[in-house]
């Protein structure tokens, strides 16, 4: 329970950085941390409910988070050149 509250607090702080982040790469890294936080929240929710199927969601989310940040960086590189 405490860990769930703490992770939600993390999510909120990351959203603050996402809003005020002075540059675009800052926002990309904040997005990365948001994905990591959400994976942690899903893991703890899995432990609460005792349903094993939710961990598959975490696998897929870790995959797509990586893809998202890589493609953001790639297109950012392409825009400037």
């Amino acid at each position: 329970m405490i860990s769930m509250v703490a992770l939600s607090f993390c999510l909120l702080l990351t959203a603050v950085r996402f809003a005020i982040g002075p540059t675009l790469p800052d926002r990309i890294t904040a997005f990365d941390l948001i994905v990591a936080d959400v994976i942690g929240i899903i893991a703890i929710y899995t432990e609460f409910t005792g349903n094993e199927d939710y961990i598959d969601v975490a696998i897929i989310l870790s995959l797509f988070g990586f893809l998202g940040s890589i493609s953001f960086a790639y297109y950012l590189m392409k825009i400037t050149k």
Partner: protein
Amino acid sequence: MTMLENIDWNLLKEIISCVFILSGVMFMLVATIGLLRLPDFYIRMSAITKGSTLGLGLILFGLGIYFNQPSMLLKVLAVITFTFITAPVAAHVIGRTAVQNKIPFWKHTNLNEFKKYLHREHLEEIVNYDKYEEKVLRKKKAAAREDNVE
């Protein structure tokens, strides 16, 4: 032998997994505070890459201990391996993009070994934060002048 029978293994398992998960959440919290407080994009990125990778690994490991089944442990290990491989790669790619995009460094960062690369790539202006701010100001002034002309 009587000692071993008296132990409540379920409670022990829950306590161990709880310790792992709470330490992971603490690492996550430290990473987030670092993201908010640190002065420069590169330092922030290093903080959240290390902190969130370790925190996520600990949380998922605690989950694997809690469920105590081989299939669950396999899935958890898959997620951990994937995170440990991809997080540094993503951080490296974003950091290189930031250098190419001339994101300024913090003024106390020691860049002596990095200067040669910057010189080769014609990126020297990002070394000086004051110069970067000047440039932004000049851009703003130019935009204001254009507005006046219109």
